[in-house]
């Protein structure tokens, strides 16, 4: 840290100078020609100068603090690699959570980098434009730090090697990919609402905080470090999210219905995508810190409750179907883990059945649902495994046209029944996992009728062939190493050999 120095200007003056002071009105080109993207969505802005970043971070300070974060982060990552940090994790099963996280999220960081760069050029107001430029650099940094982590784990574990290739092809990675593609193909204000507000402000805590804390608890120093380092940028991103919402709502009353529709849409999309994180937290961490349901209560019900109460003064209400999402917090992790267990042959990470202790933990955390609906499912599969008849689903699942997840979610109020929804558009049927996903389609059918649904693409002959082996090849998945159960995997053999070697040394 540099020694204290007297500042010539205070923070507010510096911010004004280094943002608004750098902007100008065009003279020989029309502003609308220079900024062609920020009006077509119908959002009305009357005074861009009303925007202010509450952190008042200027580019010079940004470089200083980011440089410091990077120095620290890479020192830790380097020592993790040098000291074989992978040996210190709680159990090699844990690495599978990281596989899913890094193959699912890292390419999104890169996408975010690209799209914030676009906004950093194309938003006419200089305040949000500078904030978007900073965020673009943050997101590139996140992608880089995660790829460094991948590079270390990839030396010892399967499933990481083909992450960028897999992101564009694999069935479950199409869930985060299509989520982000949807946001990037929307206009700038919808993108801000989707990513900065709904995702980063309302939901990202559920992704990073308990998960990074879980990494800390499971001895994964690399993930804790990139996670918390990335998350330190997140507070600024969250601020951008909430400011953009308030700004739109303060600028013109006509903006409210548009913003509300986006908030409803992106809350629901985020909730469905985060179901993957729910499963990581409840099933994939050998040492658990809190259940998904508990995280949902803290970060959505409580924190989101305070947020939407505050925003109600603008007429904005709690996202549509928030009550349904809260009910689903009792089910979603179990339903998702069951999906991956039965399609383990096509997943780029390993699966397993919960042990007795893990089931006891799940019963305790989910007293209303686990014993009644999900324990019997796992016990049936355990019996089948014991008979040498491990349960696989050998057909392909029906996917939701909007979220692209197998349609495995149950009817609100009836966990014994799949919730089927469908609609017709221009003479063709479309299927959805929920009312939320159906509404999203019906608001923009032209967009979602183009969805690249992995199952239908296999049937159309666009994924390397019709057999599982062909498709895995096309996914660049190493059959027998990247996929299937943890038990018997090369990952497990290696881990067991390490543990045996350590015991020998200890004796």
């Amino acid at each position: 840290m540099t020694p204290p120095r007297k500042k010539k200007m205070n923070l507010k003056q510096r911010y004004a100078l280094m943002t608004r002071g750098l902007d100008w009105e065009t003279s020989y080109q029309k502003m609308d020609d220079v900024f062609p993207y920020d009006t077509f969505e119908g959002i009305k802005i009357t005074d861009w100068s009303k925007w202010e970043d509450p952190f008042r971070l200027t580019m010079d300070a940004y470089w200083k603090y980011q440089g410091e974060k990077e120095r620290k982060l890479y020192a830790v990552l380097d020592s993790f690699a040098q000291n074989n940090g992978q040996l210190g994790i709680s159990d090699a099963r844990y690495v599978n959570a990281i596989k899913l996280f890094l193959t699912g999220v890292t390419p999104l960081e890169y996408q975010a980098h690209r799209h914030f760069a676009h906004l950093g050029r194309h938003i006419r107001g200089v305040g949000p434009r500078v904030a978007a430029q900073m965020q673009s650099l943050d997101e590139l940094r996140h992608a880089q730090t995660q790829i460094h982590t991948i590079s270390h784990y990839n030396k010892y574990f399967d499933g990481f090697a083909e992450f960028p290739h897999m992101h564009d092809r694999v069935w479950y990675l199409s869930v985060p990919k299509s989520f982000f593609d949807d946001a990037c193909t929307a206009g700038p204000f919808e993108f801000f609402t989707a990513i900065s507000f709904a995702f980063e402000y309302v939901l990202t805590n559920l992704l990073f905080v308990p998960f990074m804390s879980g990494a800390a608890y499971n001895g994964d120093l690399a993930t804790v470090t990139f996670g918390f380092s990335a998350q330190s940028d997140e507070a600024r991103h969250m601020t951008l999210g909430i400011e953009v919402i308030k700004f739109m709502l303060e600028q013109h009353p006509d903006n409210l219905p548009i913003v509300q529709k986006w908030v409803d849409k992106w809350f629901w999309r985020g909730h469905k995508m985060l179901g993957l994180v729910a499963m990581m937290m409840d099933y994939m961490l050998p040492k658990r810190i809190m259940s998904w349901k508990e995280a949902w209560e803290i970060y959505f019900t409580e924190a989101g409750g305070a947020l939407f109460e505050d925003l109600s003064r603008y007429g904005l209400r709690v996202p549509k179907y928030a009550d349904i999402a809260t009910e689903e917090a009792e089910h979603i992790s179990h339903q998702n883990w069951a999906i991956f267990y039965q399609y383990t042959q096509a997943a780029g990470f390993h699966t397993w059945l919960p042990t007795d202790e893990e089931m006891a933990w799940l019963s305790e955390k989910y007293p209303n649902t686990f014993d009644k609906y999900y324990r019997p499912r796992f016990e049936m599969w355990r019996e089948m495994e014991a008979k040498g008849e491990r349960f696989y689903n050998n057909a392909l699942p029906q996917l939701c046209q909007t979220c692209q997840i197998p349609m495995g979610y149950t009817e609100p109020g009836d966990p014994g029944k799949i919730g089927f929804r469908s609609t017709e558009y221009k003479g063709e049927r479309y299927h959805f996992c929920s009312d939320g996903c159906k509404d999203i389609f019906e608001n923009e059918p032209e967009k979602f009728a183009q969805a690249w649904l992995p199952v239908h693409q296999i049937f159309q002959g666009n994924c390397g062939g019709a057999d599982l082996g062909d498709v895995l090849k096309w996914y660049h998945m190493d059959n027998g190493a990247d996929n299937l159960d943890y038990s018997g995997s090369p990952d497990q053999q290696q881990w067991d050999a390490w543990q045996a070697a350590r015991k020998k040394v200890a004796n």
Partner: protein
Amino acid sequence: MAVIALKPGYAEAVEFRDRKENFHGNQVVYLHWEEHLSFCSAIAFPLPPEMPFGALIEELIPTYYGMHPDYQSVNWEQVEWKIDGQSSTPDMSKSLADNGVGHKSLICFRTPGLNGYRGSCS
């Protein structure tokens, strides 16, 4: 409601990705065994529209649902069918198309008395 697009004519230029013509003479059919949610969702198949409905019972269902402990006890006479949400008494000798099964139709079947492992709907 329609999408708000930057480019004029966007909506008209859209290519829908899953039109029946893209499936090489097949149509997509979804099949679901109610109250047996250990099969996480309905399952999807590309099937010729002229395939007899009875082939579901003779070929597809035993292959893809046969490992469930309830399967051996199914009484096919009593099974209740639904095609796209409507109750139906399919004619097993007639084709899928003749039974009203179209592209992206959902066929559900319920097996009264059999509702999953230990009655848990799993």
